[in-house]
């Protein structure tokens, strides 16, 4: 993948081990930030970055990825399999 940023997640009990933001796809619609302000923010280039990969529970994290109108957020399980988008 081209311009992606990976964030490792090691939240206890979570099935999600990694959040990936595809910066080429991100259009700063900021729906993910609305779902979880504790997880994401916009950087100086108006692209989403993860500020705390462990802030949200799994359900909120999946919801934040689902809310993205360009599927710029990818989630991977602790076993490495892609959880979203499927």
């Amino acid at each position: 993948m081209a311009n992606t940023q990976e964030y490792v997640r090691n939240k206890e009990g979570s099935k999600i081990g990694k959040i990936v933001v595809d910066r080429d796809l991100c259009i700063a619609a900021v729906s993910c930030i609305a779902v979880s302000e504790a997880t994401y923010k916009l950087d100086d280039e108006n692209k989403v970055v993860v500020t705390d990969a462990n802030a949200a529970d799994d359900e909120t994290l999946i919801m934040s990825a689902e809310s993205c109108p360009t599927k710029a957020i990818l989630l991977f399980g602790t076993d490495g399999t892609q959880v979203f988008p499927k």
Partner: protein
Amino acid sequence: MADYRYLIVGGGIAGTTAAETLRKADPDATIGIVSDEPYPFYSRVLLSKPAFLLGKQPFDSVWMKKPEWYGENRIAFLGSKTATALDAHTKILTLATGETITYEKLLLASGVHSRTWEIPGAEKPGVHYLRTLDHAKAIIDDLKAGEKKRAVMIGSACVTFEVAEILRTVGVEVTEVMREHWFWQPGLSERESKIVEKHLIDHGVTIIRDTEVTEVLGDGKVEGVLLKDGSIIACDMVFAFIGVVMPTGWLESSEIALDRGIVADEYLATSLPDVWTAGDAARYNDVLLHDRVMMGNWMNAREQGEVAAENMLGKKRRFELVSFHTSHGFGNMIGFAGDGRVADDRTYLYRGDEASGAFGRIIVRGKVIVGATMVNRIPELGTFVKLIQHGVDISAKHTELQDPNFDLKTLLPSA
């Protein structure tokens, strides 16, 4: 006659989210989606973005669901089918082909259409709209050849702003012709608009205000436009971004309550039994704004699809969301939260410094904020959403709200 327990009209974000929600909760139910487009669910938001329209990212990134998703989830996708009549007593939906479909519960998530431009010559190739994937494909094809030199854009809002930047990026001359006195009126105040207009003008866009095009000229293709005052602008592309309409005609015989959209309560239930609505087509009772509103944005449509589906499943969930959206162009980012309409019962507070380009308008009704538009003040968008959501009494805080250094978060109830 086909028969579905849950039938959805509309295959966009509202309808597809509803189908997904219904399937999760009811694994055995029959679910059908009727769409007047041939395509599986795609990202309407992406259609006006530069990387997509200029082919810098794969075309396939537009798909939000693959065709096989429907089969895997046993959701019947009835594409290229237009609904023409609804009978809520017999629970029958009629399609343009004459086919009929029966349902137990129906969701109308049919969205809005581009307003059709009804001036002479508007049917010529080279006159573009941008609402559907087919519209986007036509623009992509027209730009790909690299032969287009001059565009005229009609209308002044999000899509105009975004497409103007895209056209300038590829060296197409742009003349913006608008009825409005300032760009993005009334969505932005004149003071905010001046910031946006400066960027348009600095990037070579010519703005012609307070007028309209009366005819598209050319022999078989676009060669120019005629303005009301008789002047002619030569061009080879025209973008008719003249607004959207909810096609209500097909629903009139159903006697469903209509008011430019489909009228719904806070549960997104319409006036007809077992019929709900969601997304851009819904004029719903907004319990946070205490008003009946239509909101045309992605987040709103997604959440409404979910809430409507839950209510179709027998729950009683109110729709409560302060929706927002953003628009980008020429290095600017503009955010809209809540109800941005201008009305007699509202007053306006201004925040920030116009010269710096980070400037916004806060829309106040009585003691509370109902909406905000933020030009290059995006980090504050989330706080405005919360201030609207909680109905925070700001009647004694007007001075603070207008101080760009004042931390808005301290007004939130938890703070």
